[in-house]
């Protein structure tokens, strides 16, 4: 006998919003579950009219995607929410941002446009910036060249079912080195494949092929996330929604 709660079903989703937020400073140590909890509570504090699933355990309609690993910072995390009443996206952004702790900053909020494809499909690559204090830039450049010259670089990765060898090379689209304030910086564009290749996997690969061992922990920031474009860079995943919502009524959507 299926049980259903008393009373009417919850109000349906009438608007979908897509948001970009950061994890900065000490909050880089937050896991994706920590962030999800923080976002859900902030949505309640900000009194955003969330749509809920039906049943005895109603859940707010939120989809998270492509979370940056614990310990890495990010300027480009994304999630999507369903509302039971329409709201101005900019007002939602401001209210949510004000309800979140410093370090989780909501940078953008746009309305999802129907028929424009899912947000998750537009997140297939990341541009990483990895600060490597104490590493010599020339040594880093040489290591990167050696790495890029390989077809395959296997690194051991811990997974739920023990250790597994993953190719760290195939996912890397480009790798460049620069220097800022005396600190060597590695800039990577990485495809988001399964299993995901993370900054620490690339660092493990550099250790394996070129014996590069940074004296201090590396600090990685996800600078952008989106679809890999023809130039090898990462495109703004909210672009299509922004374009669609700013066009005149009746104008055909561009793909």
């Amino acid at each position, binding site marked *: 006998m299926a049980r259903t709660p008393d009373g009417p079903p919850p109000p349906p989703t009438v608007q979908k919003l897509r948001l970009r937020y950061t994890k900065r400073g000490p909050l880089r140590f937050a896991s994706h579950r920590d962030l999800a*909890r923080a976002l859900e*509570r902030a949505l309640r*504090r900000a009194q955003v009219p969330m749509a809920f699933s039906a049943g*005895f355990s*109603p859940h707010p309609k939120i989809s998270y995607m492509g979370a940056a690993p614990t310990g890495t910072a990010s300027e480009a995390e994304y999630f999507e929410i369903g509302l039971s009443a329409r709201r101005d996206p900019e007002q939602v952004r401001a209210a949510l941002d004000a309800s979140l702790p410093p370090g989780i900053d909501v940078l953008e909020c746009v309305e999802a446009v129907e028929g424009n494809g899912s947000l998750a499909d537009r997140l297939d690559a990341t541009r990483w910036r990895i600060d490597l204090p104490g590493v010599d830039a020339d040594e880093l450049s040489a290591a990167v060249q050696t790495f890029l010259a390989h077809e395959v670089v296997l690194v051991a990765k811990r997974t739920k079912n023990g250790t597994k060898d993953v190719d760290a090379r195939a996912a890397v689209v480009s790798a460049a080195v620069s220097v800022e304030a005396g600190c060597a910086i590695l800039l990577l564009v990485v495809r988001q494949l399964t299993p995901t290749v993370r900054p620490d996997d690339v660092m493990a690969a550099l250790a394996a092929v070129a014996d590069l061992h940074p004296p201090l922990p590396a600090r990685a920031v996800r600078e952008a996330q989106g679809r890999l474009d023809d130039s090898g860079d990462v495109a703004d995943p909210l672009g299509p929604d922004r374009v669609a919502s700013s066009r005149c009524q009746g104008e055909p959507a561009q793909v």
Partner: protein
Amino acid sequence: MTVESLYPRLEPLLAQVQKPIQYVGGELNAQVKPWDDVAVHWALMYPDAYEVGLPNQGLMILYEVLNERPDALAERTYAVWPDLAGLMREHGVGQFTVDAHRPVREFDLLGVSFATELGYTNLLEALDLAGVPLHAVDRDESHPVVVAGGHAAFNPEPVSDFVDCAVLGDGEQVVGDITDVVAAWKEQGRPGGRVELLARLSRVDGVYVPRFYAVSYAADGTIAEVRRTRDDVPARVGKRTVMDLDEWPYPKQPLVPLAESVHERMSVEIFRGCTRGCRFCQAGMITRPVRERTITGIGSMVDAGLKATGYEEVGLLSLSSADHSEIGQLAKELADRYEGTNTGLSLPSTRVDAFNVTLANELSRNGRRSGLTFAPEGGSERIRRVINKTVSKEDLVRTVTTAYANGWRQVKLYFMCGLPTETDEDVLEIAELAVEVIRAGREASGTKDIRCTVSIGGFVPKPHTPFQWAAQASAETIDHRLRILREAINADRRIGRSIGLRYHDGKPGVIEGLLSRGDRRVGRVIERVWRDGGHFDGWSEHFSYDRWQTAAAEELAAFGLDLAWYTTRERTEHEVLPWDHLDSGLDKEWLWDDWQDAISEDEVGDCRWTGCYDCGVCPTMGTDIQIGPTGRSLLPLTPVNR
């Protein structure tokens, strides 16, 4: 003197440890005040992991009360897991607060809240990591004053070597008094050094300074006498009691962590104290009398707390929440107020009666309907008379059946094992009860999709209760009874598969028993265990019975005593108990009479309804019962989230 943040040195270590988020602070509603703006600096510690300590109400209350003072600041610190502790030692980073990552070593006071004795080794670990001498007598003016509080502080004797003071009773007011004393002493240029500061603190009502009391022992190992060593300290130290809880609506801004914690909800304490008179219950004995928050006071705390936190569940906290004089109205009016907002309300662990099912139905109207918990505590009617938690088997089965009939699928029943006078038969009745509950429940609900979880733990006799004289059951006895209970539950698989059994083996309880009723000589055991690597004793993966047993055998042998002497030995009427000079207000003669009544299975009523039975607390402490009903009701709020 400005105190530097340890964060820059801590951060590289955090990349190498489990769940680093627990060490970074930045919780919603956390506060950081400039160091030099205030006279008195408190570090408040919950001596367990962050996920357990953060939701602790007591610490949250004191944190806010202290930070509201313009002349004080309070920051929080928790037990550090071994992975980070190892790195901190390696890199010379001391125990830090999570708020501003200031070194604990630099604070004026380190307040430690002991909800359970199993946190003692974590205090030693934190002191050592902080660079504070382990022994109170080795500290000088530059070291924090270590103050123990919480329920375990009603017998702080086992940790008296390591703490400078213990505070008895409610903390809201006494932390202010302590702050005043420390501020004045610092202002005057620290006259008389640390000893003078402690002497001044010992004259604050509710503050016990162990070093000013000498304990002597008789030839048989019992305590001969506890004598004060200065005339200007009280002969007996009495507990503090906060009257009129509506005046203390804390926490006003509950802390919301990013990390997952053991209580993913906010809590509002609806009353303090309990006079049900359950004889095993230390909390119910030492927190008397009952002081209710009014329905309107609760309503505004729930409202303010939800706005400040964004939690989707509110726990209405107390020792027996269904006993609040306005609970029915409160449940209905809160549920009305939050209708349509997906806000759940819950009562933790309720007593066994049908009214509680009605209450639970009401409270779960807007939120998630999880499980219902009842706490009969004793398996048989006989043992329930012994512990003074009287409920007939028929009532119990009827209540649980009503819950199933009302759509609850999961019922949890709490029991204890190893209670005074208990036999195997008393425990086996738990199995009969569970079987009957499932049979009746399947019939009443028309489905086999119901579950009953029996949760059972070993009883540990506690100070300031009628069972303080009782012989604790041995670990073997507990384990034997748990085994026959499990066999009895599994005897009929058709029913047994609907019954879950959750239990803890008897060994940790023996150590808890040693620490609960221990005296100053037990301090050596605690120190030895910590030196041998013991900590996080509340966690089964870290607790080592062998380590405790070895340490107890070797350290207590010097006194001609052993673990059994402290645990399974029944005390006599006139034995001087280690906590006799610490006054919870309970009359020792009344406690003894209640112990005798327990043995003869005589019950005692609740003074809220049957009149005073002279437990002694109100006249000794100058307090009185504060209960409603007030006749007021909750006003509807402007609807949100519709």
